[in-house]
Each structure stands twice: as structure tokens, then as C-alpha cells.
């Protein structure tokens, strides 16, 4: 789908709202919530680029996140390098893992890729416990330095990274590359019969997906100032997939919206204290039932159609 003027207007408006939100709401607590939401936005968009477009669901995106975050942790805490190196190292390590997982599994049809990613992340989570003398075990690595000091500065840097991620991924998704990825989702055999090297496109897309997940992981690690085994957890991968579904799969911008919405919703629902998860789950069920295409992307398509 071509990018129209209205899409740029929407993107700039969304950016302005996100930029103004911490100024309007003020507290450092809110800045923290929003920074985390933006990291999830990067993760959701990067998941969507590979899995949303090709339809090969990745149930272990946390493998790339954990790998990137621990790379940041080791460089910064163990080796004392500047936190800025993490922005390079985290995506590189994540891409290394994507090659490791993608080559054997993406050449096969069937559920191997989804299962391998799921178990790959689980294995890495356990390895962080087993090698606790290096990884800090359950406590993880502590004492990471922030990238930028006032948290607001780091928030704006994260926002810039998210905007860049969205721009790059959307640009590729709208290029012939994206057409091929959507064709792979439609029918792999037909794609091969059309002369397309399906395996190449799947692996390369997973590498791109992992690279951006790694960037998000570095930003997250240097905001939380701590990395732990939970960053490899299956539940993290599942949460990202839920955000993508709520946002609208295959649209790149939708999942970012879904990530921000669900992170903010979680905070808003704190007022419900012990009923929080009940309400959260009910909202999700409502969305899946009545808006199976998601919330953000279909809504935007409607706005587009009206303004056309």
C-alpha cells in the first residue's frame, strides 16, 4: 500500500503526542512507563516485519531481546565499555542468533521455525542460570549506565530510535522486498515458481527483525540499568505477539500503537489493584472477539478511506 500524505500527517501527529506526553504528565514515573512502552514498540514492529509480513510466526522474539540485552550488559558492566557501544553490539549479537536459528529452520516448511525459536529462547534463559558466575544468574547483571542522563533525554532518544525503526521497516515493507514477503505469506511454492529465492528472503528478513529487536534491547537495558533472565522469557515473546495482534498484523505502525496502548493500559489499570489482570484480559478478549484484525491499523485505514 502506497504511503500517502495523510500517513505522514498521522505519523507526525503520533510522534508529537508521544513527544509531548512526558512534558504534559510530568512525573519521572510516567517517563519510565513511556520509555518501556517505546522499547516494546520497537520489539513489536520488528516482530511484525518478519512474522507479520511472511506469516511465519516467531514464538521466541525474546531470544533476540535477551541476547541483545546481555550483550549490552557484558560490554558495559563486565568490560566497562561506554553504553553507546551497546547500540552496535546488541543488534550484531541478535543477528548472529537469527542466523543460527534461521538457517536450519527457515528452509523447512511446517512449524519448525516457531518451535525452534520458542525453545531457543528457553534454552538461553536456562543458560543464564547455569553460567551464573558470568551472568549473575537469577539476579542478572546490575549497574548498567544510562545512555543519557536525565531520563527525559533518554526518552527522546528512544523515541527517535523508534521513529527510525518504523521508517526503515515501513520503507522496506513498501518496497518490492515487502511485496515478496507478503507473497511468501500467501504461498511459498508459488513464490518459488515465480523465481523467488524464498529461503533467502525469510532468513534476511529474520536478520533485519533481530537487528531492530537488538536495538530495542540495548535501549531497554540502559534504561532499566539491569538485565536478567526474564528478557529471554517466553511470556515476553507472547506479550509482544499480543501487542502486534492488538495493533494489526503486517502494518508495522499498528503494532507500535498496540505496544504503546497495552503498556499504558497496564498502568492505567493499576487502580483496579488485584482485579487488574481480570480487566486487562477482558479487554484483550473483547478486542480478539470484535476486532480480529486489530485496533490501530484497521482504525487508521478507515480514517484514510474517509479523508481520501
Amino acid at each position, binding site marked *: 500500500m502506497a504511503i500517502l500524505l495523510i500517513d505522514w500527517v498521522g505519523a507526525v501527529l503520533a510522534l508529537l503526542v508521544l513527544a509531548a506526553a512526558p512534558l504534559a504528565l510530568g512525573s519521572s514515573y510516567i517517563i519510565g512507563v513511556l520509555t518501556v512502552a517505546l522499547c516494546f514498540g520497537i520489539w513489536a514492529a520488528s516482530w511484525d516485519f518478519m512474522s507479520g509480513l511472511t506469516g511465519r510466526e516467531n514464538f521466541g522474539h525474546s531470544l533476540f531481546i535477551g541476547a541483545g540485552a546481555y550483550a549490552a550488559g557484558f560490554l558495559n558492566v563486565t568490560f566497562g565499555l561506554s553504553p553507546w557501544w551497546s547500540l552496535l553490539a546488541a543488534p550484531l549479537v541478535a543477528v548472529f542468533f537469527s542466523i543460527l536459528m534461521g538457517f536450519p529452520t527457515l528452509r523447512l516448511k511446517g512449524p519448525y521455525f516457531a518451535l525452534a525459536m520458542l525453545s531457543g529462547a528457553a534454552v538461553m534463559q536456562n543458560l543464564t542460570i547455569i553460567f551464573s558466575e558470568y551472568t549473575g544468574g537469577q539476579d542478572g547483571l546490575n549497574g548498567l549506565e544510562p545512555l543519557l542522563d536525565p531520563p527525559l533525554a533518554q526518552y527522546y532518544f528512544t523515541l527517535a530510535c523508534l521513529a527510525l525503526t518504523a521508517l526503515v521497516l515501513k520503507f522496506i515493507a513498501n518496497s518490492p522486498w515487502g*511485496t515478496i514477503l*507478503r507473497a511468501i505469506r*500467501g504461498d511459498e*511454492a*508459488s513464490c518459488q*515458481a*515465480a523465481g*523467488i529465492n524464498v529461503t533467502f528472503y525469510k532468513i534476511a528478513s529474520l536478520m533485519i527483525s533481530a537487528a531492530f529487536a537488538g536495538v530495542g534491547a540495548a535501549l531497554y537495558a540502559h534504561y532499566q540499568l539491569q538485565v536478567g533472565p526474564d528478557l529471554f522469557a517466553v511470556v515476553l515473546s507472547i506479550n509482544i505477539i499480543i501487542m502486534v495482534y492488538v495493533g494489526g498484523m503486517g502494518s508495522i505502525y499498528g503494532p507500535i500503537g498496540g505496544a504503546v496502548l497495552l503498556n499504558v493500559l497496564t498502568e492505567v489499570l493499576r487502580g483496579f489493584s488485584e482485579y487488574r489482570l481480570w480487566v486487562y484480559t477482558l479487554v484483550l478478549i473483547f478486542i480478539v472477539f470484535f476486532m480480529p484484525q486489530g485496533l490501530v491499523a484497521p482504525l487508521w485505514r478507515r480514517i484514510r478511506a474517509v479523508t481520501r
Partner: protein
Amino acid sequence: MTALLNVRDLSKRFGGLQAVKDVSFSLAPGTITGVLGPNGAGKTTLFNLLTGFIGFDSGSVEFDGRSIARLAPHQIVNRGLSRTFQLARPFMGMTVRENVEVACLAPRVRHRGTPRARAQALLEQVGLGAKAEQLVDVLPYGDLRRLEIARALATNPQLLLLDEPFAGLGGSEIEPLANLIKSLHRSERLTILIIEHKLREFMQLVSEVIAMDFGEVVAIGPPAMIVRHPRVVEAYIGTAAIERTAQPAEDGLGAL
């Protein structure tokens, strides 16, 4: 004239089933050849072997003077050998034009003009120009067949393999499609290998027929000779002819 496709002793076994056995034939450039045989004769398997979707056990396949054994399907397409599928397999959720555009992105043809314009031109050629912006999901079956052909043509093949292009089409749709295939053969100087059940369309289209049964080639020759060949009558027509006496003609067999 040297053959465009040279197949020698091609064999494939699936467990206990010899799907294709010692198949040999060659195709001269610019010809339309048919592959005839009852269900399970190994016709589609033969196509899958030639196009790299299934690896063969033994034998050799030479295309345009070079072996294409053990090449991946997309590599074979980029050598100039394309196929359609027996059941149309469009890219759901995409428009008709995007469906063809994907094939315009194959390395072999990527630099021949903009994919978008090429896709549109190909759609005009197969008579789908007006439906280019429709979602493929709502396309009627007859149009899907044309789309399959447009997508295969987009890769600029020298040899086009059509797997039952008339399957599932109504009577009024068959002749226009046959005419399309004939006109493509002329205008694109294509060599075509075509699997078909419906003998009437076959007889008009093809200059030579490869008759198969139980994975083996039982006869090769012009269509008029093939339909009278004893092995073909026995394998393909014989049993059906017996059924026909009990039951009025159906399918293409009635055309015999």
C-alpha cells in the same frame, strides 16, 4: 535442431510406489507437447521433478544444453523454465497485479522495466487488465487460471509447463483459454509442455503427445496416432470406455 529439454531415464520412487520410471523424451524448441495419462500416471510428479520441487532418484534433465539436476525451483525458473500448478495457487490478500509483480521481481527479469508496468502489460495480454487492482481473493476460478499463466509468463520462460490448465473450467471458458495458449505460443515463441485430461482441447493444441501410465512412458507420437495406440487405449481409454457404456459420457472423455 537441438532439443530445448532433454530428459533421460528419469526415475522417482516414493517408498513402495514407483511414481516415475525411466522416463525419456525431448522437446524441440517452439513445439507444444502434451502429457496424457490417467490419474496417478505420474504426470504431475514428472512436472515436479522437472521444476525442482521434488528431487529425482536417477536420470538426467538437460535444459538449454545444461543440466538442471539438483537445482532449487527458483533457480530453474531463472534458467527459463516456468510452470503453473494444477490447482491455482494465488497469493491471497494481494491484488491481481501484485500477484504478477512478484514474478516480475525474479532475478531473471528484474531489470526489464518497472515490475508494476510489466505486470500490468502481462495482465492485459491474458485478458485480466481490467481486474488488476482487485483483490485476488474474489477472482473467479477461470480468471485464476489466467493469472497463473500471467505469473509464469512474467519470468520470461523459454519453456512453459502447464499442469491441467483446463481443469475445473466450464465449457464456455475452455476455448478462449485454449486460444490464449495458442496465441502465446505464437507471439512469445514459447515451447510448451501441457498436462491435460480433456482430449478435445488436446488434439487441437498439441503436435505431439507423451502418453504415460503407472509412471512410465507408454507411447510418444502425434495425437491422432496416440488415441489409437493399443497401450494408451488399454491404460486410459479402455476402462473408461467400458464405464461409458453403462453411464453417459462425462468430462472430456465424451469428446473422443
